[in-house]
């Protein structure tokens, strides 16, 4: 197995992120995949981005400009 190293943009583990743990992943060049040392997540960039988009969904007001206070 190849040495794990920092990947592009320091992707955090999207599964750990779901429980609000910031856990940087390691990148395996040979397999072109990221993996988490904590929760066993494995996935490529596309999969991470899909899960990150899912994470953002909890913020229902994220694109609303609120002015009434």
């Amino acid at each position, binding site marked *: 197995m190849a040495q794990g190293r920092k990947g592009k943009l320091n992707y955090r583990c999207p599964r750990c992120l779901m429980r609000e743990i*910031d856990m940087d992943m390691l990148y395996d060049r040979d397999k072109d995949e990221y993996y988490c040392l904590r929760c066993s997540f494995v996935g490529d960039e596309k999969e991470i981005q899909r899960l990150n988009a899912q994470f953002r969904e909890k913020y229902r007001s994220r694109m609303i400009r609120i002015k009434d*206070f």
Partner: protein
Amino acid sequence: MSTFYLNIVHRPEMVPEYIQKEAEQGKVEDLRRYSVLQESLDIFRTQQQIAHENGLRTTIQMTYASLFNAEAVAIAKEHHEQFGDEIGSTFLGLQCAEFREKFKSKELAIWLFAMEDKRKIVDEVFGKFYEVFGFYPTSTGSYYMDAELVNYIKEKYPMVKAAVATCWEEGPKAYWNANNSWYTLMDGGPWNPWIPSKRNIHCIASDEADDIGIVAIPHLSRDLMAVFDGPGSYYGTHPQNILRGMVYENREIPYFKNIVDQYRAMVKYNRGYAYNMMYVGPGWMSKGGRWEADYAFLLKSYKDGMAYYGELKQQGLLQDLTMSEFADVYRQNRPYTRPECTLWKDILYGSQRQMFWYADPDMRFCLDMNQGGAMVDLRPYAAKLVRPCGVGTKANQDASYPFLVQSLYRAGFFTHYAGEGSVKSCKIGVGSEQVDLCACRTQASFSEEGDTRIVTLGPVTIEFDGFSARVQSIFRLTEGSGEVEIVRRILDSTNPDADFSLDEYITACYGTTEYPEDLTGVRLTLVAADKTESIEYAYRCREAEAENVQFVEAIIPPVDTRLTMRADGPAAGYFREGFSFSPMYTLGIKKIVKAKGELRTWLKVAKAS
């Protein structure tokens, strides 16, 4: 006239942890690595430029490392001359080759050194600052500045008038968020600037004798709802924190402006005054990108945030001050007893939820309107606990101010089918039916009557077998009283003959983390017209109740606090001891009323000794 003050703080942190860690991938540690020093300085310069382009002045907090860098010093002097920026000092960014050589330590947090070392470091940092600039700084800071540290600084360098002193609600949540590796355990302070007590930095000073001599500023202005139940470093006036929390879409972050505007709206609760602070270290704007954002997005978010402040300034809606200027302005019109109040509303999750935050020299608490105004956090500032932190102290890394109630760390209304959680609320009963107001969502409004702040909750309808009743809660906070007055009123009922039992209670404990502390020795007392009962806590489920109660109280020696409840007329009082699977104590006052009747009680937090 309303005023919204802004402090922008920048620091030339020569060896920021994040950039240093990046640069070290696959290499040995080198605190003089040229690429790191240069990148950090470039980012600092960029941050300064963005502020100035938007017509905003900054406080430049020189790190110890930057005092050895001629370029950083030259920029600070130039910007002080040209833009009127303040040159202050920070205890962040201590680590550099010179520090390592002198102090032989890798410790990065000033509050975690032994007291003897804190003194030496203060003298070294301030001495070097004087050598470089020819004067001592009047503002300083770190993520946390313990009272013992600030007392020493004031004794030796009395000109210091402001300090960044805590990160709001960075405690167990921040630790957990950082894979249990970030030791900013400092829950329990105010969310907006305050004058701290000499005894504990978290507590608001009671009077001149208790005044530590600085104005404390929290590190960032944070979302008072999201951060109560989430990581501090996701939700605040720190654009890259928001990127870390991923509160954006298509590279746009309206949430930043929403936070700023909600802080601006605090003028309604605080006699026309509101405040914001922005403090982004260079490590957060690394050229290599961070938090799934590339450098272009990191930069854009910073520019957008600063542009909004600039826009507000141009419209005459914001006053940018340096930290020391702000300290002077703050003291001009701030009686010690004046509370800080905020009715915060959800700007993140799309709910209508509101939380009311309150802080004065006696207590800090939070009411959750999603739980019928239940008190979900209570910190006994009146105890002014002397609780030193750092090596050689009992607290060591745990610099938080203890709570009596914290509904997230110690359950709350909802528990897993056994025992009770910490919360203050009221149960409304008829016959064998009983409903806790925690289950009745509502909204609140804020008003004032002289020196009394009033939080009035919208009526909630409670369904009983065959009829319903509307109940209203009102919280009255009279400045300087150290008490919370609570009114529970049956506004009307479809059954006018029904007898309602109103049971006002507080279920509490003490601690700074999620884990239980030993309650042995906590004294529970009930004093009634013809009866007094008192027990020492021993996890034995004992209870006592009496009519015509004068007061019920708990004395909690580990936090030197006396918690008392009393009523305004005839009522029954009780206390309840818990057990090991439910390590809580409960005080309560009960009364039977008809429709239109009410129960009025007072909760007092005082120093026990």
